[in-house]
């Protein structure tokens, strides 16, 4: 039981910080500061992805043989901390965090060779086609149908809440290939090597924050090759379950982002007047509220550090669900306090000023610009990737044997 603070680690931290201070372009920095979602502005995000790839740092959590960094647990955490301190846009999770690790684990050799290099270097962006209008939390009830036809599948149906599908050039998805047996059976996991197949249509959905982050994707007799299948036909549910573990955490650290949110709230509070006198940052009630959140974020950081160091806490079958629940609810709570700090300053709708490279100045501070969109967008965190109601069901189910 020990934690070392070796000079080597401090040197590593300095190396990372120096790179983050020098490598990103102004547009990448602006995109980082204006990120009001899990999903950063697409163009600058991919540009930054490529810069990190050049440096060899695009996928620290991947095995070294596939382009990972081979860093220690503490190094990965330091990397994440410096990343957020520098307000850089987080890389998009669908490719690097989901389909990439999945292919490493379960893909054929051919799939790996074909797809992993361009996932790693940022040439490709993969959309995730899971949810459907009729199947939200009840994912297994999906009905988008794929019929085998020669070496192909013919897909009919639709997907919804497909993040950034309008930016994607590839897509992984779940389709129904059989209606026999339990609904979890008869699902197949497919890779689509393009998203412009004849019969495919992608329609962005405008969110509460005014941005088209999600999409609907329609399939009308879309013919795709069967070679894109991962795992066996009708065995896609177990493939998806494997991937969900990556999606719900364990591989990456969310606490540095939360730390940064609270820091930004503190920075803003240091110059906003409290109606009770002085600046908000010195107000005891603000201090108690933000202190309570900081403590909870610290506990999440402890939880994450134990997990990435291989502590038995990460082998608890409910670990992914706990991680997702804790993280998503903290994001919401952090966004609430950010929004409270902005107060009426957050009430202006400023879509144009939020755009990276916009020549429209924000009405108030840059903090006021982001706090409300971030609050509105974060309402999604307890809904997507399995609603928190479903996560709590899963957690309770693992306790049934206790």
């Amino acid at each position: 039981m020990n934690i070392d603070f070796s000079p080597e680690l401090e040197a590593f931290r300095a190396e990372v910080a120096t790179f983050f201070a020098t490598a990103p372009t102004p547009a990448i920095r602006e995109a980082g500061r204006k990120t009001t979602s899990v999903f950063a502005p697409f163009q600058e995000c991919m540009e930054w992805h490529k810069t990190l790839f050049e440096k060899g740092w695009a996928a620290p959590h991947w095995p070294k043989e596939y382009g990972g960094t081979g860093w220690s647990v503490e190094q990965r955490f330091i990397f994440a901390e410096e990343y957020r301190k520098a307000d850089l846009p987080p890389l998009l999770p669908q490719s690097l965090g989901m389909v990439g690790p999945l292919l490493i684990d379960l893909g054929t050799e051919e799939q790996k060779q074909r797809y992993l290099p361009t996932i790693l270097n940022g040439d490709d962006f993969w959309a995730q086609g899971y949810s459907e209008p009729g199947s939200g939390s009840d994912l297994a009830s999906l009905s988008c149908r794929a019929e085998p036809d020669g070496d192909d599948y013919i897909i009919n149906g639709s997907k919804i809440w497909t993040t950034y599908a309008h930016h994607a050039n590839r897509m992984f998805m779940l389709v129904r290939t059989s209606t026999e047996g339990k609904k979890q059976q008869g699902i197949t996991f497919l890779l689509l090597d393009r998203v412009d197949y004849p019969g495919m249509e992608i329609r962005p959905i405008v969110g509460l924050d005014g941005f088209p982050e999600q999409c609907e994707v329609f399939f009308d007799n879309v013919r795709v090759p069967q070679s894109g299948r991962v795992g066996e036909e009708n065995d896609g549910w177990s493939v998806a379950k494997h991937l969900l573990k990556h999606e719900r955490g364990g591989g990456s650290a969310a606490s540095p982002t939360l730390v940064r949110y609270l820091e930004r709230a503190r920075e803003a509070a240091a110059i906003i007047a409290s109606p009770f006198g002085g600046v908000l940052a010195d107000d005891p009630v603000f201090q108690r509220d933000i202190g309570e959140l900081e403590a909870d974020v610290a506990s999440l950081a402890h939880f994450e550090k134990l997990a990435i160091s291989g502590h038995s806490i990460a082998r608890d079958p409910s670990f992914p669900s706990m991680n997702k629940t804790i993280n998503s609810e903290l994001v919401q709570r952090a966004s609430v306090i950010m929004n409270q700090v902005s107060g009426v300053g957050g009430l202006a709708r400023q879509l144009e000023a939020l755009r990276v490279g916009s020549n429209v100045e924000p009405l108030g501070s840059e903090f006021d610009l982001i706090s409300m969109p971030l609050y509105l967008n974060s309402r999604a965190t307890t809904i997507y990737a399995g609603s928190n109601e479903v996560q709590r069901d899963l957690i309770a189910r693992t306790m049934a044997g206790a």
Partner: protein
Amino acid sequence: MHALWQGLELMDFSFSQEQEMLRDSVARYLDKNYDFDARQALVSSAAPWSAEVWNQFAELGLLALPFSEDQGGLGGSIGDCVAFAQSFGKHLVVEPYVSSIMLAGAAIAASDNTANLDWIEKLASGEAVAGFAYEEGAGTAHPGLIKMVAEPSGDGFVLSGEKRLVLAGADADILVVAARMGAAGPVALFLVGKDADGLNVSAYTTIDGRSAANIRFDAVAVGADAMLLADASEALEQIIAKAIIVQGAEAVGAMDALLSLTAEYAMTRKQFGTPIGTFQSIAHRLADMKIAYSKALATLTYTAALANSGAITARDISVFKGQLGKMGLAIGESAIQIHGGLGLTDELNIGHYHKRLLAFDAQFGDHSYHLRKLGQR
């Protein structure tokens, strides 16, 4: 001796027949002309609000309602306004009723300077609209927090400073402006024309679809007649208290809509083969929404009756604003969660109700401010 007191029924929380008639006619008009699609079309149009709707409000007498009869109004009570304002919330009305009539209009009406009284007639007829330039940024929860300064200059005054979130501010014919007489003097109220030199208007739309502006005053010179009240603190407190009650009624209307829409959705939307409302986690969330709404409705009803009786205190207003602000956010967040992804789209009305409730909470001191005020004795 207790028989003496028997049967003193002194609390009356019901609307009068006239109030019910007014409420019903407003509700009928909005049901017919202001459904969500029409409202969204209006919000995404170039117009800040609907001139037609505004005229109709004038015809229904809403614009003249709160003004006294000797000023050309209808002498309506706060209860009259509460009676129909819930419909405004239900329909997410973007017309500047509270800012032009309940705030700016009431301020002109409270003036001891009769030079500007003809504006009341214009406001009450719908011919003109007024903006209320009061808010100065996070925290203008009380007139005592006003920092903008008015300096005497010749016969008149020079106003310098910045106002934020002036609803209808870019489109109003006149602005009522709160400014302090020198750095430490009392807060006074001024009337400023929309074309005054030195006004620097940044127009925008609020998250809840209303036209608003931040307005910088670069040494705006006004005449002596522009002063509505030399010491307006007390008047402002009373005016804002009434506006808060009417905005609160709008908020309760929005909560009511969220509650019924969400209950209905939960009973029809199926997951795992059964309506999601049959899952206890959703059912209990609905129950909590119902409880929050019932508390909010009770506090609205009681506080409006109290205001009607003239017995309302700053504490009652803090209870009101604190509770309704807090309940509104809780109800809105639950409604979104139960609606899932749909609740997060711009297309559905759910999120728009929530944005209205966010705006309600943030203005005139948020719930945390008012609840803490209650804790101070």
